[in-house]
């Protein structure tokens, strides 16, 4: 469902992604690991349509459509969701307002009826309950004054509400306590189906105990230098990346 072919991307004239090939089939979970600065977030941003990146070569097909020409909101409509490494604070916009607008925008894109306030509240209550997230967060401004872990949970709640077909989690597990980690895992597992796929970017094996990947890839210096099954993650945790950073250079 996601086909990345020979993807090259620059930031301010500097090559960051240097030929990525990655294919994800429906129902699969892929994990990407790799040293700091290797381009993991850049890859996630390019897939979700953040500006500031120059794609110099290659393509990204999502369900057969080239999504590189689409606006971020169109990609969201197509079912792509990115849980941010650093979720953004938005003063003055309450979580409820934001999520309602988001859900209705996506529903509209997908040709579904928009929800009124009552219907929306029903959805949000159901999702917070499933994920064990407190309703207090809803009235507050988006991520403002949230702890690191609360921000990540908030992203997972958004994901649960928008029901994407491709969820990309960029270090959503970093800095989380065990309970929050379970919330993240629940969020992902709630969406798992033969039609949906997940791309997990992480530095730690422990998330992968909850979200078991079908494939693990190592990204170093803008390239996927090794792929394997879940045992690769355990191996990396023991040995680190030294081997790959030399190899990629």
């Amino acid at each position, binding site marked *: 469902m996601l086909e990345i072919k020979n993807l090259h991307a620059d930031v301010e004239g500097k090559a960051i992604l240097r030929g990525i090939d990655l294919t994800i089939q429906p129902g699969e979970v892929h994990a990407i690991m790799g040293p700091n600065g290797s381009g993991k977030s850049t890859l996630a941003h390019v897939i979700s349509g953040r500006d500031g990146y120059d794609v110099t070569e290659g393509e990204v097909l999502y369900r057969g459509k080239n999504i590189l020409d689409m606006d971020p*909101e169109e990609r969201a409509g197509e079912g792509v969701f990115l849980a941010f490494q650093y979720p953004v*604070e938005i003063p003055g916009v309450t979580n409820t307002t934001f999520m309602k607008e988001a859900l209705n925008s996506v529903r509209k894109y997908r040709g579904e009826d928009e929800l009124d306030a009552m219907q929306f509240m029903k959805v949000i209550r159901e999702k917070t309950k499933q994920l064990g997230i407190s309703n207090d967060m809803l009235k507050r401004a988006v991520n403002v004054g949230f702890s690191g872990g609360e921000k990540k949970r908030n992203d997972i709640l958004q994901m649960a509400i928008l029901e994407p077909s491709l969820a990309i989690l960029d270090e959503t597990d970093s800095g989380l306590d065990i309970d929050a980690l379970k919330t993240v895992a629940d969020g992902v597992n709630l969406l798992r189906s033969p039609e949906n796929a997940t791309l997990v970017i992480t530095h730690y094996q422990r998330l992968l105990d909850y979200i078991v990947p079908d494939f693990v890839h190592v990204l170093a210096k803008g390239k996927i230098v090794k792929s394997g099954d879940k045992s690769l993650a355990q191996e990396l945790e023991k040995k680190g990346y030294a081997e790959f950073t030399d190899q990629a250079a």
Partner: protein
Amino acid sequence: MKQDNAMTTPFVDQYDGLKPALPGHALPWMTALRDRALDSFAEAGLPTQRRESWKYTNLRGLKQLELTEQALTPQPISIDRAPSLLPDGSAYRVVFVNGGFRSDLSDLAGLPEGVTLGSVAELAESQPQRVEALLAAHRDTNDQPLVALNTAFMRDGLLLQLEAGRKLDKTLEVIHVNSAENGVFAHNARNLISLATGSEATILEHHIGLNGAAYYINAANDVTLAEGATLRHYRIQAEGENAVHTSTMNGQLAGGSFYDGFTLSIGAGLSRNETSMKLTAAGARCHLNGGYLMRDKQHCDTTTVVDHLSPQTSCREVFKGVLDDRSRGVFQGRIVVHPQAQQTDGHQLNKVLLLTDTAEINAKPELEIYADDVKCSHGCSAGEVDHDALFYLRSRGLSEDSAKALLIQAFLAESVSEISDEALHDVFLNKISDWLAI
């Protein structure tokens, strides 16, 4: 100050001809007041950019209006309903159409005892001493040519006077509707507001232009709050896109009184909203807040001067501007803490979002502090819509336009939340949404 004749003479030359028809002509004190004001206006001239406080705003556009004698004579237009923002019956309503009071559109039923509310022109006939006293309270216009111009030519406006301890039990909605359907015109609205000891009122003032034709409004507002009085004064300036709107407010705040002001400017091709507040005794508090939303080639000038003349007075200003296209904003905020005004608390903030490279803000905060035990701060910032926030919202499916609108709304909501009468927040938030939806 050297005057610019081309802008000043059209007014001065018409004074003698118009004088006999101006309200209160039979009252010697009124005529004397007007004569003096005209002299002072003729000498100072319409403000030009040579004047320090008018550095960024240019009234030259008035020349193109070609204000003839006919233009300075009221032109009634046919309107049978005032565009009110509040449900019928929930507010007292005073309506002015092209500057003239329209009792048929107003609603003053059930006014409490001790409240005088109505048209300055009518009250100048029926209770001349009252009007004389109110006009005398602010005789010293300290070098304000536009107030002098207003005094010379004023015809009508709002008069609100509350006796000690009286509370206006409902919001007073004041609607100024203007339409140039019968040709160009200029008028000088004069609003007189005086609240005696411990009295209290809330005013929602709305200036609306009904079509795109050009006109000039030069309003002057005299506000006097006695000990412990509270005035909540919220304004929406939504004049027609080719209108020129200048408004000068002079306020005197006695001990323990509270002026809570909010002005939302969205209309007029060129507008200037100048407020001068004198805090004369301990406990006087003044909030001057607002927002200005401009697009195309609109120009909006917000100028405030707060004089702390006594110990223990405070002021707080939060202004938010959103400037699109080639529009221009001006913010001049002066806080003067006089030597005797110890323990002054002054806070001023002006934040602007520039939506294009061609929009412009000229901001000039000025703190003049002559006392040593004071707490004063000011902040000014101008920037674009937050890029990261924009992407965050769009990645969740919001279109670029709605994401921007949501962020701008949030940005402005901070200033709206300063309005102490929470029941009126929605009126302002709705106006802001309307503006964003265009």
